[in-house]
């Protein structure tokens, strides 16, 4: 299972044959860091090296607002539209003249100069209209039809397309002894289907996220990164010295296995456990109360603060999922507002989102982190502009909004992308992009591109069939 940079590939096609076989010949001996790096080097520079924005990011924070937040009531207000569309909220000005947000986002309005909004996110689902299908599309770049004919009912499978963070942690492994890809504080979920679109799929479990399914607003337990009570650091060092001696006494084996980078993995594991760098990143008590309050003493707010700390420690990809999922209860702050869209949004969801995202923008700017960190905030879709209609087959109460993948908004910031502006726009009712539509695959392609990964590269799935990393084009105009 190796990936192929360079030439435009396609399914079952000829031109990439050579690269495939070349990759296959490496793959025979199992993928390993050492020969992968070597091989990457041998491949020479990417055809995109030096291209505008290519490789501008070292790391990514993805705030994934699962459930599908209403774009009209947060990022893309339509004050001129009729009440049945506009809803209950007013538009407010921001610190960027000409850009308005919904009144639900007053704190973000003061940080608008630090980020950009893509108001023309759009795609048409092929098949199911549910969350799982949309999440899968959003995070893997593929509709779930090929791997999950039923869409909703299929649990995650090793045949799934890998989630973005898995591709990234494989293609751009971190250089520090840290966790490459962290997902928190809870899995992606729709009813009984848990984690679809959030796993390494055909890349193998080695590239799954480190799943910190805990509430960051409470003390975090890290058993696997914490030395066991009976093993002191000195004892672990002793063990490693002894291990080194045992390995060293069999030079033939060392030689035969030199390509597997085993010592490097062990070294990293040793550092992770011993250096405490990753463990320390998880320790939010190292932050001042003031900072913690600024983010909000909520699961979401503290999760964002933790995300920032992990990125600082060297983690490549942090995925912060919205901590509540749909269960039909309007008292729970899930974005799936088929009913009671306004009250909960105003009083529950948006204050948490507003505080958290604005704090992260402010904090990361102050720390100069946006130089090489990309922030993306997006959900799997938006919500129907018209109130109380059914678009997904769900029943909606008169004050509810249904699923709406045809038009929604994403927030991006950092890595030299132009801030304080809106890219693309929606029509009068927020129903469809008016200009510059951005497919979720384009957004994914942009993320890969920013990290120095050619979005056109080919990867091999679990049956060693070539598949495109993502069928999308990076949005170069964001820079």
């Amino acid at each position, binding site marked *: *299972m190796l990936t192929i940079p360079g030439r*435009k590939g*396609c*399914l*079952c*096609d*000829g*031109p990439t*044959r*050579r690269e495939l*076989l*070349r990759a296959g*010949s490496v793959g*025979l*001996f*199992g993928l*390993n860091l050492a020969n992968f790096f070597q091989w990457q080097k041998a491949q020479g520079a990417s055809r995109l090296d030096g291209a505008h924005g290519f490789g501008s990011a070292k790391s990514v924070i993805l705030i994934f607002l699962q459930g599908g937040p209403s774009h009209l009531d947060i990022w893309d207000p339509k004050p001129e539209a009729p009440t049945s569309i506009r809803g209950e909220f007013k538009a407010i000005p921001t610190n960027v003249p000409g850009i308005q947000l919904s009144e639900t986002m007053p704190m973000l309005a003061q940080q608008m100069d630090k980020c950009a909004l893509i108001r023309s996110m759009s795609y048409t689902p092929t098949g199911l209209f549910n969350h799982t299908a949309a999440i899968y599309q959003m995070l893997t770049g593929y509709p779930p039809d090929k791997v999950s004919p039923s869409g909703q009912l299929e649990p995650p*499978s*090793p*045949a799934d397309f890998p989630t973005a963070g898995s591709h990234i942690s494989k293609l751009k492994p971190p250089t520090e002894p840290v966790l*490459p890809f962290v997902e928190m504080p809870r899995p992606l979920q729709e009813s009984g289907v848990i984690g679809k679109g959030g796993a390494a799929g055909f890349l*193998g*479990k*080695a590239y*799954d996220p480190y799943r910190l399914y805990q509430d960051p607003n409470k003390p975090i337990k890290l058993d*696997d*990164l914490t030395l*066991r009570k*009976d*093993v002191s650091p000195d*004892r*672990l060092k*002793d063990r490693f*010295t*002894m*291990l080194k*001696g*045992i*390995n060293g*006494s*069999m030079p*033939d*084996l*060392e*030689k*035969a*296995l030199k390509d*597997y980078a*085993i010592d490097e*993995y*062990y070294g*990293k*594991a*040793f550092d*992770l*456990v011993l250096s405490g760098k990753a463990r320390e990143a998880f320790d939010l008590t190292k932050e001042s109360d003031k900072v913690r309050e600024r983010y909000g003493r909520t699961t979401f707010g503290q999760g964002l603060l933790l995300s920032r700390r992990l990125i600082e420690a060297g983690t490549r990809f942090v995925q912060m999922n919205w901590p509540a999922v749909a269960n039909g209860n309007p008292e729970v702050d899930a974005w799936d507002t088929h009913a009671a869209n306004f009250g909960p949004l105003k009083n529950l969801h948006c204050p948490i989102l507003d505080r958290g995202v604005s704090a992260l923008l402010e904090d990361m700017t102050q720390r100069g982190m946006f130089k090489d960190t990309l922030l993306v905030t997006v959900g799997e879709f938006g919500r129907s502009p018209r109130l109380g209609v059914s678009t997904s087959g769900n029943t909606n109460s008169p004050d509810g909004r249904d699923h709406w993948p045809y038009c929604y908004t994403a927030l991006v910031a950092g890595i030299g992308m132009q801030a304080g502006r809106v890219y693309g726009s929606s029509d009068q009712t927020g129903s469809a992009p008016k200009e510059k539509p951005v497919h979720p695959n384009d957004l994914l392609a942009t993320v890969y591109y920013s990290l120095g990964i050619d979005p056109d590269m080919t990867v091999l799935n*679990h*049956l*060693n*069939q070539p598949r495109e990393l993502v069928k999308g084009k990076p949005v170069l105009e964001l820079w």
Partner: protein
Amino acid sequence: MWRTSWTVALMFILSWTTRAAPSSAKQSPKITELLVEPAELILRAQDEGMRVLVTGTTPAGDRLDLTSSAQFVPAESIVKVESDQYLYPVRQGETQVTVTAGGKQAQFTVRVGDLSKPPQISFIRDVEPVLNKVGCTAGTCHGSAKGKNGFKLSLRGYDPEFDYEALLYDMSGRRFNRADPARSLMLAKPTQQVAHGGGLRVELGSRYYNTLLHWISAGVPFGNPTTDRVDKLEVLPKEVFMHGPDQSQQVIALAHYSDGTVRDVTREANISSNIPEIADVDAAARVKGERKGEAALLVRYEGKFVSVPITMLNPNAGFVWNRLPQYNYVDELIDAKLKRLKILPTPTVDDAEFLRRVSLDISGVQPTPEELRAFIADKTDSRTKRSRTIEQLLSQPEYVDHWTLKWGDLLQVSRRYLSDKGMWEFRDWIRDSIAQNKPYDKFVRELLTARGSSFENPAANFFRVTRNPKVSMEKTTQLFLGVRMVCTQCHDHPFEKWTQNQYYEMVAFFGSIGLKPGFQSGDEIVYDKRDDNEIKHPKTGRVVEPKFLVASLSAPPIPTKDRREALVDWLTSKENPFFARAIANRLWSYFLGRGIIEPVDDIRASNPAVNEALLEALTKDLTDHDFDLKHLMRVIVSSRAYQAGIHANEWNGDDKVNFSHAMPRRLSAEELMDAISLAAGHRPKFPEVPPETKAEEFPDPHVGKDGFLDVFGRPARESSCECERRSDISLPQALNLVNGRTIADAIADPKGRVAKLILAGASDRAIVEELYLASLSRAPTAKEYDAAMTFLRPGASRAAWAQDLLWSLVNSKAFLYNR
């Protein structure tokens, strides 16, 4: 010991010889004879060019490609020679052409037909190859599943009818300007006279341009689907054999048509090397050596496929063949290849190493310290006691566990598909089949012809996993024939001869398999459907008649009912070119770490065997022994090649495919967990299985889900693909080994091996020895013993010291790998 020092001595002599030998590679050798291929050319049209290969023979009998330096002089000006060495016709007639190369001369004949009556230009024969060559039909362009910018062609032009109609009728035929052919959109686009998303594909006035223009001028004829299709593709030379990386070899590709005509299609064919690091091929179809090794040249033209083996010898002088003992035919066939490639095999491992390797490979478990001591103490000669051990291992219960696990993976035994009871029943059926060493053809027959309740006839569970005819067919062909048909569901196979029609013809055998709920909860009944049992072709909508993938002489006609029986007769026949071959190759890969064809379930002409003679011999041995898998295992592990050490010598360090030395293989997830249990004397508990159950005995991936086993690559049984089981090393694995529960709990168990040794008052020496035997399956050397003792600090806990030693041993590479 004697053997080792002897090898070292030999190595010394060899390396000394290498240094002493004068380098002769750069001198151009004397040529005794010139050979020209083809010996005769026939040219029939003005724009039809052909070329020849010129090969010189040296006094030593080596063949050298002299084509690029050859000079051609025709006796009469019936042909002219272009700078690219292509010969083009001038006028009708026949002439001799004199070739001069390497100081020698040779002649060949060229005949030119009536140039005023050239063959009629055709879409199939002339235009489609151009569309393929310049990339119009590539998967990234118009060949992609949805086409490009509203224009769709078939992938790599596998469907000329479709492409012809697309060109003619899409856009109401606006692609052609019949009045002024040069202004046709079909020419304007690829030459970028108008905007073309795909960029410039054809230069104005080029050969391909002229072909397209000529075709449009001629009124866009489709051609004759029988005579214009390529009948056979021929590539010259048949084998590329080079004596060093500084050489090159021209190749030519010839398309043969059913009317007997032959065309040089070298420039239109798709030619690539499967391992460019060993030998690459340039745009002029010249193979260039890069470094020693073997590769294959893959040549593809209009749905036909030829692969040409490339051998690059080690250019170093001083190779001396050293004949090692021949344990059986396996060694003879491997050595024949090694000798030819100048690769020296590595001698066999010592007894302790052999016992660990063979125990893991046959039964999935390491030997216990007691077994090891007994084996080493046994004074019988080594080969006799090794074969005795092989027999013992093949008959012990762990053998059944190990191969039940293997087949459980391949047959996807999992409660996810089969319910708890179905899963246990199916697994027990497999166990039983393995325990009685059921002949492999019978085993497969029972699976594929199973009917009735899956609880009563557990073999029927096979179809409960696949559930629909297409999946059943894909799994059957991939698992039992090693042939992957999955690509051909949507289009003809791009690298193989399989077509979409064949896909559906094979699916038709599975059309009548039905599933209905059984009488007990969780059961299903496999039955033959009376109606709704026909398979329709997606393109034509017509019912497809079943047809075997490869015709078989002895196969009876296919009945309308009980097609599965007919299928199985054909499938499991000794004559079937894939069935025995696939399992022989698969078994081999389990013991040697890679198949003779690799991947083992991707057998095709474009993926040649590294040692065809060996695979054929194993296949024949298996059919001669009526599909007795144990017999084949016995042959494999009894060979010297299997018992070779991992140590590489000067002449085999680079060889990773010819079985000249052993390759360490990481223990599988289950083997590793069981090995830790054995070393530490502690077995982890899982609620789904009784205490003390080995991981190798787990019935399905539900047991211990998301834990150690999954981190170490246990397959989830999502497919029958061998690739699902992973053997890579990753950070989560290292973290788990360093700081995870499995090892930590095992070594600290108060009833475990360390605790018992301490309680029994074992001496330091006894502890070190016992822990080495239990983990690395060998006694420590004196140096290793001393090293271990340096960590036993005065006053410190002996138990902690012993735990640390065991921790280090089970984390060592010698433990993690089968070596």
